[in-house]
């Protein structure tokens, strides 16, 4: 879709909300909206798209109470602001919008959180991403390094970039708004998304991308929306297998889950952000003992996180029940860089080839 068409659609969707309220008021009805409940319990697996989305539980916000009325008032101010921004072809960050609300009297935001949640509400109501409203995320974009060529529509014109040849060692920096990206072609066999910078650089230094035709994506911890969207787009466009390589602890499993199944906070965007076909490489709890990796004892918080994952519908598979159970049993965790204890080449020469071929990727 062209930028103009996208903008028109966004404007239309926002107006639809305002019009609904207007009609309610003219009809003598207290204005209200209805939104899905955003909790772990209200995540449901969508068979068609194979991702986790919000289920059917909804909560109604109506201007019957001062709190909800205020919410609606703020939302109408935000809609007004976004409408103007779309008309003027401007964009802004959530933080900027927060400061702009200073002039909104009663509708002023009192915390950044409030504006964030409100934008998420609008995403759900319009079925559009915030980028469609020209809202820039603050989150860090990640980097990509590998045999893939893309086009980026920037304000300064279209740039065509090959992510091995045209970039420095740090790779190609993913922009905030990835809807402006188009993936052109590639010479890769698969994508490997990596949690830590140390491992990203290790694979690059050891020439893993060249040797195995891998596109390296540095997730920088819990991946930003734009990074997850890029993984989704690459998979969509080129049908390349997506694999995820993280540390072996409960927090890292959540990184994988957000790539593959979507996150609780953005379940309404799962179809755009999640890549259900993404496969988990490791570090698996079984790897820790199989490879005798240096390890740390699970902290109390780790154990709680693992147990909470056992009740998370996204981890309700045989594989994860086994791995999490195993980890609770052995009581330890390891980092991906722990493979260095067996030599700097071990991870690229031994572990990854073995694990990837076991997974059917190589």
């Amino acid at each position, binding site marked *: 879709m062209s930028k103009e068409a996208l903008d028109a659609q966004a404007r239309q969707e926002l107006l639809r909300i305002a019009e609904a309220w207007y009609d309610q008021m003219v009809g003598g009805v207290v204005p209200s909206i209805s939104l899905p409940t955003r909790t772990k319990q209200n995540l449901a697996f969508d068979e068609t798209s194979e991702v986790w989305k919000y289920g059917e539980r909804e909560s109604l916000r109506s201007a019957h109470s001062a709190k909800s009325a*205020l919410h609606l008032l703020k939302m109408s101010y935000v809609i007004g602001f976004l409408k103007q921004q779309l008309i003027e072809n401007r964009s802004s960050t959530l933080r900027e919008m927060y400061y702009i609300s200073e002039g909104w009297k009663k509708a002023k935001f009192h915390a950044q959180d409030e504006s964030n949640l409100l934008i998420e509400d609008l995403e759900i109501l319009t079925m559009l991403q915030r980028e469609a409203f020209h809202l820039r995320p603050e989150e860090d974009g990640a980097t990509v390094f590998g045999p893939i060529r893309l086009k980026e529509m920037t304000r300064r014109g279209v740039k065509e970039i090959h992510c091995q040849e045209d970039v420095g060692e740090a790779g190609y920096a993913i922009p905030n708004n990835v809807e402006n990206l188009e993936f052109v072609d590639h010479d890769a066999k698969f994508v490997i998304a990596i949690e830590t910078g140390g491992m990203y650089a290790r694979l690059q230094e050891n020439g893993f991308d060249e040797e195995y035709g891998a596109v390296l994506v540095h997730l920088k911890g819990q991946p930003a929306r734009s990074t997850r969207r890029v993984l989704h787009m690459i998979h969509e466009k080129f049908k390349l297998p997506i694999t995820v390589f993280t540390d072996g602890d409960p927090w890292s499993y959540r990184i994988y889950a957000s790539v593959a199944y979507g996150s609780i906070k953005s379940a309404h965007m799962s179809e755009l952000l999640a890549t259900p076909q993404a496969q988990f490489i490791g570090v698996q709890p079984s790897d820790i003992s199989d490879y005798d990796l240096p390890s740390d004892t699970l902290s109390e918080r780790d154990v709680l996180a693992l147990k909470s994952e056992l009740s998370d519908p996204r981890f309700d598979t045989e594989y994860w029940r086994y791995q999490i159970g195993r980890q609770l049993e052995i009581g330890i965790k390891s980092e991906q860089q722990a493979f260095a204890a067996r030599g700097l080449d071990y991870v690229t020469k031994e572990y990854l080839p073995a694990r990837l071929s076991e997974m059917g990727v190589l």
Partner: protein
Amino acid sequence: MVLAEDLASSQRSISIAEFFEKNKHLLGFDSPTRGIITTIKEAVDNALDACEEAEVLPDIYIEVKRKTGDLFWIMVEDNGPGIMPEQVPFVFGKLLYGSRFHQIRQSRGQQGIGISAAVLYAQLTSGTPAVVTTRTGPATPAVRMEIQIKVATNEPKVLSNKEVPWDRTHGTRVEIEFTSTLSAKKRLIEYLRYTGVVNPHARIRAEIDGEPFTSERVSNEVLVCPKAIKPHPYGIELGMLKRMAEGETRPLLEFLTSEFSRVGKKTAEEICSIASLRPAAQVKRLNADQQRSLLAAMQQVKVPAPPTSQCLSPIGEELMVRGLEAEFRMDFVKARTRPSSVFSGHPFMVEAALGYGGKLPPEGNGQIMRFANRVPLIYQQGACAITQSVAGVNWKAYGIGQQGLPMGPVLILVHVASTNVPFTSESKDAIASIPEIEKEIVLALQDLGRDLKAFISRRDRTKLQEDRARAICAIIPDIALKVSEIVEKPLPDLTVIEGQIMHKVVARKRTTTGRVVLSVHNYTAKDVEVQVYDISTDPALDAVPAPDFVSPLDDTFTRVWRVILPPGQGWEASYTGAGGGSLDLRGISEQMKVVVDLDV
């Protein structure tokens, strides 16, 4: 080697007065600070007890004066029945002398130590005798005695004794002097205030070092004095049984039915049967083993709880509430008197009251008032079963903050009445931890907590309605404004929405582009007549309609319109101006009106 004979020569008996002289702390005289409070407490206890027995409404007057340096003169005077002159020396000059020790009923004093301990303390520190004035009725003259205690023998010594004129027709007055300090004056006043709360039938006046204090009588009903009861089978020990059996001439069955509470013929026979004793057995002939099995049987058989209506004297829910209301201003206060209960054969009864809000301090620990047999407990709060029980209640469930003890604007009164209050020490500062008593306290407090919760949520509900009104009158118009701007359509009419939900009179002020608009809507089902007060710096000379009344004061103008509105009707006035200032409706109750300044 020293021989036993040598040792024996120095053996001698010690008088109880000598013992207590050396162990003052056991009686609450461990510091000069406490001395005054303890003395007044003992004298007031005696006065209240005596008035109760005589069925008089107590009128007590207390005076404390600094004489020289740290020497204080303390005087307590009552309108009780007075004391027979021949008894006076013993009551004030002999430790362990009293009328209530052997009786099983609720009373303040019990052991006959308190006031004579004060006399002992006085002669120990100041050397001055106690002065007692008493009169038993209008027909007899008042008598004034100077009394001391012969410590070595615990016997009284009367230094002087003469008839004196006195304006009271009956009553007792005691004057005591000792070295002390008034640094705990606040506690003393607190003690008197608390005493007033649980003795609403008493008038207590005092002048403490020049500072006057009065706790007025709230009730004019004379208290019915508790009657003594017989011991309950569950409440005696072997030693006591032995003593009762000595010199008993009746056969066992009769002994049981006549000497114990709640033991009828059937119960007595059951006891005999369990103890394998003949009902006709001679009680005084029972040997130690038989006495033991008798006691075991008495405590094994099912006996109803001892009677309490006679021997206990609860304050009552209504009087507790009135007593508290006289002393504190609160939004909520309720009281509960629990049914009487029993521990180890001693009847007891728990009463509690719970106050909330009002002038109570909104921050910090709540206030706990502890009472035993209508006597305030001032010291050792932490060690007391009442405090522990209060802490044991889950106050959060009733909407009250809690950090161990309840927090915030809350006042808790607990009164434990018993024929035998189990104190942790003879200074009677704290009630011992007895599960039966603690359970009753917790039940009473939970009951009150539920009432309080209902009150708070009722109050919150009212607040919610208020809140909803505010939402509709203040926020929805703003939504309408913004939304119509977005959809680029005219402002919708909101009266239908408002009328639908609101049943009040709504007044609004809004300023747009230099024009001030006041509006009043009657959403009630009745005609209303109100005055609209609009105060601001705008002269509003062009107001339409013109106000019925205008008063300028410096730069401020007060405008008043009289408005009569049938149900469902609205009224509007407007003028050129900057807005601001204030708007109000008069002539209508607070509950029925909503005033909203849309510019704020």
